């Protein structure tokens, strides 16, 4: 790896080496001290299930069941570690690759596929999970998260000291997004308003085909202090370190300490999306380097070394993964097609002369075909 610029891996908080060996950190080890073997197995299980889901979705795209898929492959530690640090009342604004975080918020993973199948622009009720809809325009949602956190402030839900009550807001985005004006504006607005926001950047090294060196010449976390925002770089493939730094940032946000920028240094092991071809712009050697740093392998190694990975657990997890894959496939096949006239729904909250007239015309047009009814002419 490069030892300068945004690709340097120096200064990363790490609590678990790629070989699965625990490291002590004076500030962050205490933040994971309460995570017992069962909690660790839980995170391991989350990561395995999310990867299975991700692979299943990739296969479904290849089979023509999805129009597109954006893989989370390789980013499971960043997403599960940060996601498991959240409290139920915290609110998340994801980008479009946060399948692992969605899982930790209790979103039915099958519903993530509605967007990619082309039957829904959303797919779930954000209020049910405190997990906003995916945002496809890079970085836009970091401002929504900032405004949401400003609302939380006004609601008096910051700094009460009640752990069941105080809430934080988290925005997930990538290395490419850090070049967007909106992300920089989110840093400005959250800083001057002292908004309880965690800006969680997954630096997965690649913005489609552009390396992080095309976005920055300094580590991304270095930008925080210029905005007056405390920042931390973390090994994004270390689920324990991701948990720890997120827990710290969430605590700062909930207690009224304002925003934090986290740079989780990870790797997009798959393609940007199923339409991408990474072999055109990155080396097999680089991919191999990161395969040796697989976020799941190191947790498995740790659990095995500590004698906390019984064969029955592994067997059950394998069975659960298979069952999940099967359920996802069945759910996608059963999704059906929205009614044609539903495209006119919810443009406005109430009646609208223009939309209503176009809907009425369209329904009449559809009904005019032999056999009548929706889609009869197709």
């Amino acid at each position: 790896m490069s030892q300068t610029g945004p690709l340097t891996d120096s200064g990363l908080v790490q609590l678990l080496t790629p070989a699965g060996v625990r490291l002590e950190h004076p500030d962050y080890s205490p933040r994971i001290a309460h995570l017992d073997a069962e909690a660790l197995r839980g995170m391991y299980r989350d990561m395995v299930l999310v990867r299975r889901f991700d692979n299943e979705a990739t296969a479904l795209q290849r089979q023509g069941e999805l129009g597109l898929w954006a893989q989370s492959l390789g980013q499971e530690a960043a997403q599960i570690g940060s996601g498991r640090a959240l409290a139920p009342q915290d609110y998340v604004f994801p980008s479009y690759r946060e399948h692992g975080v969605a899982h930790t918020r209790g979103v039915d993973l099958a519903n993530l596929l509605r967007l990619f199948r082309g039957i829904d622009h959303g797919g779930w009720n954000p209020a049910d999970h405190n997990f906003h809809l995916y945002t496809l325009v890079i970085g836009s949602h970091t401002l929504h998260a900032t405004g949401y956190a400003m609302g939380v402030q006004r609601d008096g839900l910051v700094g009460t000291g009640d752990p069941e009550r105080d809430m934080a807001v988290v925005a997930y985005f990538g290395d490419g997004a850090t070049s967007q004006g909106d992300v920089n504006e989110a840093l400005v607005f959250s800083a001057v308003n002292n908004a309880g926001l965690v800006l969680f950047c997954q630096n997965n090294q690649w913005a489609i085909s552009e390396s992080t060196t095309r976005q920055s010449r300094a580590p991304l976390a270095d930008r925080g202090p210029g905005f007056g925002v405390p920042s931390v770089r973390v090994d994004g493939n270390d689920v324990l370190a991701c948990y720890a730094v997120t827990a710290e940032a969430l605590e700062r946000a909930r207690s009224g300490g304002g925003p934090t920028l986290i740079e989780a240094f990870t790797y997009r092991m798959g393609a940007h999306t199923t339409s991408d071809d990474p072999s055109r712009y990155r080396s097999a050697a680089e991919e191999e380097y990161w395969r040796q740093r697989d976020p799941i392998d190191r947790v498995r190694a740790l659990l095995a070394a500590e004698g906390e990975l019984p064969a029955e657990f592994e067997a059950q997890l394998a069975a659960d993964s298979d069952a999940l894959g099967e359920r996802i496939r069945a759910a996608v096949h059963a999704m059906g097609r929205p009614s044609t006239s539903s495209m006119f729904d919810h443009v406005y909250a109430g009646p609208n002369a223009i939309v209503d007239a176009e809907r009425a015309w369209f329904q009449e047009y559809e009904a005019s075909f032999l056999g009548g009814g929706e889609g009869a002419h197709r």
Partner: protein
Amino acid sequence: MSTTTGTQRITLAKAINLGLRRALESDPKVLLMGEDIGALGGVFRVTDGLHKDFGADRVVDTPLAESGIIGTAIGLALRGYRSVCEIQFDGFIYPAFDQITTQLSRMHYRSQGRLSLPVVIRVPYGGGIGAIEHHSESPEVLFAHTAGLRVVSPSTPADAYVMIQQAVASPDPVLFFEPKGRYWDKGDVDLDAPLVDTASGETGLDRAVVVRPGTDLTLVGYGPTVGTCLKVADAAAAEGTSIEVVDLRTLSPLDAATVAASVQRTGRCVVVHEAPVLYGAGAEVAARITEECFYHLQAPVLRVGGFHIPYPVSKLEHEYLPSLDRILDAVDRSLAY
């Protein structure tokens, strides 16, 4: 800060100020956001005194970043707040264009109606005030072209007072275009005017209004051009021509029915706006009137507006803007058909 009541003769700017004050008083979730809207009261003083009376948490001086203003207003709306954002000048709205068109306009749609964004964006727009570049634009059609947004523009203090409150109360995002050249025009305002018609239960925010009846030709304007259209009607009346003037008030939705009903009576139509004619609101009105009033028309629908050039230097703006004479010229051409 006692509530003002009764009918007063006030400027359009003051009418918006009082409407905002009423909105802030009646709903604690209403916030004002924008650049210099606090202690200064905005560069046009539209928010004068509100910072002092409602505090910095409700009348918020924002960083100088329009995308940030609208983006954070969206987040606040998701948390239940109703932000009224001031874009300082029309020509500065473009940094927020992405947030307005890709996020604000379609959150209700993409969430299947689960998420509402009752955000109001106030935009002082239009020319005629001798301003430097980027301070006299009329970008309203860019937003009328985007589904999910409402686009309205008052032409009188009375309408401004009521419409700004209706915009704040609207569950949809509203682009509220304020004719800055008319900010200092005075008119009678009923400060107790109802926001909802008690009989129909409707606000009328989606309705055009016939502001002067006539029989020979329909003159359609909105915002800053309505006053000019009324003067044209006066001048034409002196020559024996009876002009009906329609104030569109809203571009999205467009109340084509009110215009069509008028044109079916008069048989002639001229549409006037400051924005460029090319692909402008007049084109939409003309197309719809042609479809709906084809056999009533005595002449093609004509348009008077800006040219296909960037807004010119202020020394030339009165030649660029639809003036009394240019509108009368179009009226004459229509009548001569």
